[in-house]
């Protein structure tokens, strides 16, 4: 198909037909709650607070399982948030995009995995912090 509609960032995770207020209507009376009907919850809006500076990425591997992030998860990566020690970040290490926790130790910054068997990486001139992980999305199928 040549005419694909491209959705910008928001992943539509909303349940479009599930209204927040379910009122049973007594026959003959207008619902007093009619005016209080709200939009359905939009999970994408909630997850992605800063759509212009946020990017969705897929996790490949198990080095952050200790932080509750596992293979196949979708993460929301923000470039509007300033990385500080303790944040989970996406970093470019020698051109490879990698997921680690940023930690300050003895005056140096480190990229630290949260699973056994993965090495810490020191933040030097070959490392660039690309963005801060601000959200996580997972489906159980």
């Amino acid at each position, binding site marked *: 198909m040549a005419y694909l509609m491209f959705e910008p960032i928001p992943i539509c995770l909303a349940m479009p037909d599930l209204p927040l207020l379910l009122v049973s209507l007594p026959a003959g009376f207008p619902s007093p709650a009619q005016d209080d009907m709200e939009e359905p919850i939009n999970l994408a809006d909630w997850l992605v607070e800063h759509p212009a500076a946020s990017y969705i*990425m897929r*996790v490949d591997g198990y080095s952050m399982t200790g932080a509750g992030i596992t293979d196949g998860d979708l993460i929301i990566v923000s470039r509007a948030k300033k990385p500080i020690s303790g944040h989970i970040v996406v970093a470019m290490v020698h051109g490879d995009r990698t997921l680690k926790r940023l930690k300050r130790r003895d005056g140096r910054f480190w990229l630290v995995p949260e699973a056994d068997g993965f090495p810490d990486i020191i933040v030097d001139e070959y490392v660039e912090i690309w963005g801060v992980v601000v959200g996580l999305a997972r489906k159980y199928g």
Partner: protein
Amino acid sequence: MSAPVALIDCNNYYVSCERAFDASLVGVPVIILSNNDGCAIARSGEAKALGVKMGDPVHLIRDKIRQHGIRVLSSNYALYGDMQRRVVAAIEPFARDFEIYSIDETFVDFAGFEHLDLAAHSRAMCAQVRQWTTIPTCVGIASTKTLAKLANAAAKKNPTFDGVADLRDEDLCRWVLDQFDVDDVWGVGRATAAKLAGLDICTAGQLRDMALKQARAIGGVVLERLVAELRGVPACAIETVEPQRKGMAVTRSFGTPVTDMDMLMGAVAQYAMRAGEKLRQHGLVAGRLTVFFHTNRHKQDQPQYSATRTLSMQPMTNDGLMLLAYARRGIESAWREGYGITKAGVMLEDLIDADRRPRTLFEDDSGRRDRLMVAMDQVNMRFGTFAAVPASQGFKREWAARSDSKSPNYTTRIAEVPAVKAR
């Protein structure tokens, strides 16, 4: 003195978008090919240095590509469109208003910001764009759009400007105008440049000093307006010059927010028709249409929504009705109820001469189509509405364009988002 206007332009935009997600493209020569992988439409600085020219057909530079290991990518307009949305969002807080001119160029209105150091303000704007998108930009500031365009070129060309040139300083403006040839001025074509050369008018500075009457005699109202703008007098010159091959945009702000899809459609229909007219005027066809609309981002207390849809057009067209049909599809897919839309626009990209347009198999007789268009135009002009457009207007023959080495739709398709190693 009129209000300052600035042009912010993304450096090697398509390449910069690709590099945001593919680090292996950083620091190496990269070219991006047009629709159908025909010729180079974007080049990294390294590729420019190797002598790859804009529009070079790829089959003629195969040797160069092999020899220097130039990375060759098909264009990925979905990515470029989505990144542009982000660039514009980063620009917005820095300006009173903005006007998207093409996919990588946005005019910003600095009225009301004069009390600031606009160069520092612009650098902060560039830093914000770079932070949110990774994309490098340059800014030209001046009192007219034509001068802002030249200022931007100066900022790109001359590293001493550090990415921002402010030509409101008269001495600097004079100096810069003397550095540029007449055909570097936006809208001065080769034919006009040759005529001017006959009069010993070779630099932008000499063009500025030309008598307005003489300019009109040589290059019509376009050249007259350009000269006025070079003198710092806003004259809407940009609106009359030929669209750049990279693309053109028709955008407007609405006086009162639009909350109804049909009303938005009505406005966008006009832009599509206007864009079609402009293409036909210059004998061009377009391969891509982007339609966008959004709420007022300066009113954060109100619900915010912003949408962009990019559609590929096959066959390439300058038919207003076709453009409108595409724009309509885009809006239908993007529309959400409950928002007050204050700005909308249509952008056309991938422009080529109408007579060099690739033909598709079993194409309709476009002569009939052209006559229909004229008739429709007249009907619409008389009744002032585009409601008469048949919804059934079919696009039965759709073939995907060739794009053998297109990058993934990193930001617009969940199945193609970048992977992060957790290994």
